[in-house]
């Protein structure tokens, strides 16, 4: 497959279960490296650099390519420490600097107003939707260029989902967002480009509007009109 992802926009990967969209997403920050026995071929070039060239440090790559998972996975620490976790990993120790990063990240994730008085409370006391926005804030705190979202709303209720979608639309002004979604309506609602996968192959990659209104491939049309998947 050959795929170009434009920056500062939302690209959605859609397709039936097991078609390889999550796996592809996880090659973009090399999360697949941790799975024993995984074989990776080909190149992923981010800003003129192949991240599989054997010289790219995976920790540095992941600092620039953040990820939000399907299940909200805040650490069993305070809200503050969750957001400060990343910056601390990368050497930020000054309290005032950390405070600034925490506030800025929580504001970007539109969570600040809800948690600013309870920053010292456990992150596990938040609701599922708040936890997921906390995970987004945590990812933003290390100042990535790219944000990967792996079905990040599929474990959430409709209201939380809407909030995250609004947030995503806001975030694309400053970040390149790649999202995997099971929900093609979501892709249609918020993404700029949509890529349709089937059995590990890219069937069609186009501007979202065009892909949903006038798909070029018959299989794409079958999928988006609900004939399978």
């Amino acid at each position, binding site marked *: 497959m050959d795929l170009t992802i434009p920056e500062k926009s939302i690209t959605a990967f859609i397709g039936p279960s097991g078609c390889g969209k999550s796996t592809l997403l996880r090659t973009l*920050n090399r*999360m697949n490296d*941790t799975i024993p026995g995984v074989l990776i071929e080909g190149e992923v070039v981010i800003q003129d650099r192949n991240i599989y060239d054997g010289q790219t440090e995976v*920790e*540095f*790559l*992941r*600092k620039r390519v*953040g*990820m939000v*998972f399907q*299940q909200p*996975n*805040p*650490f*069993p*620490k305070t809200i503050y420490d969750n957001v400060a*976790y*990343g910056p*601390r*990993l*990368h050497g930020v120790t000054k309290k005032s600097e950390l405070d600034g990063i925490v506030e800025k990240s929580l504001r970007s994730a539109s969570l600040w107003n809800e948690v600013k008085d309870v920053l010292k409370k*456990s992150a*596990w006391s938040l609701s599922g939707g708040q936890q997921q926005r906390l*995970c987004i804030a*945590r*990812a933003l705190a*290390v100042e990535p260029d790219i944000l990967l979202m792996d079905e990040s709303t599929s474990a959430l209720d409709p209201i939380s989902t809407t909030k995250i979608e609004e947030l995503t639309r806001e975030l694309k002004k400053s970040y390149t967002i790649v999202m995997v979604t099971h929900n093609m309506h979501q892709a249609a609602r918020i993404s700029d480009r949509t890529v349709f996968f089937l059995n590990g192959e890219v069937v069609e990659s186009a501007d979202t509007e065009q892909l949903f209104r006038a798909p070029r491939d018959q299989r794409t049309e079958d999928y988006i009109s609900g004939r399978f998947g």
Partner: protein
Amino acid sequence: MNMTQTRPAADAIAKDGRGKFPKHKLEELRGRGYVMFCVLLLIVIIFSIVYFIASRGLTPFASQGVSVGEMLGGLKWAPEADTPRFGALPFLFGSFATSLLAAVIAAPLGICAAIFMTEMMPKVGKNILQPAIELLAGVPSVVYGFVGLSVIVPFLRDVFPGQGVGILAGGIVLSVMILPTITTVATDALRSLPAGLKEGSYALGATRWQTISRLVIPTTLPSLMTGVVLGIARAFGEALAVQMVIGNAPHIPHSLTQSAATLTSIITLSMGNTTSGSLHNNALWSLALILLIMTFLFVFVVRLLERRVKHA
């Protein structure tokens, strides 16, 4: 139509219920009877043991003129002297010193072994290290004592001044004995950590060691401590192996390689030489009571830690 079809069946059930005592109810009662009997027996046994130890152990204080203060704070243990003295502080000290030393040695080893088995090389850990450590749990304590007496004690005698026996030898032997407890509890704790948490850390650019030290260990700390406390409790109660290497001198030692004694070692050593009901014999029961109370305390601490795990 449906109604008419089900009526005969309903009638049959009603008739059966009105009939003589049904078989399944009898089975139910019999099963419940067995379980209740076993539980009652268990409760009776536990309470009899506690009652027996307490009644014997409290006699010296109640009717034989020994004060609790002397027992817990006295330095001289001379039960057969003309004016018998029952200061058990040296034994308390010995028990605590050997158990804590054992924990200090075994905790880092056990926790590192658990990290190795869960985070670094799960295959080697599961196939080689874990069976090896489980094997340690099955070795009889007399064998540990014997090995300690013929390997560790001579080694310590060559390296440090003194006879080689003492708290250091006891602590080393005990540390090997409690290693399986600490390792097993720690391994279970690390394995039960949700995989998503570690992924979250890696996704932020953390290295494996950063993930272990900043996320895995802090998150599982209460569980890890549970393992250590269980280990200390086991070390506290161990008698035979300690008795073989500690030297059994009833005083607080000035160094780790000087003879000492523990609550357990003094009980096993002296009990054969006393007659039931004598002051000396009852004083040993008092030591046993102290051991029992300590065990309760350890169980209490473990419960406390477990509660913290749930609330994390």
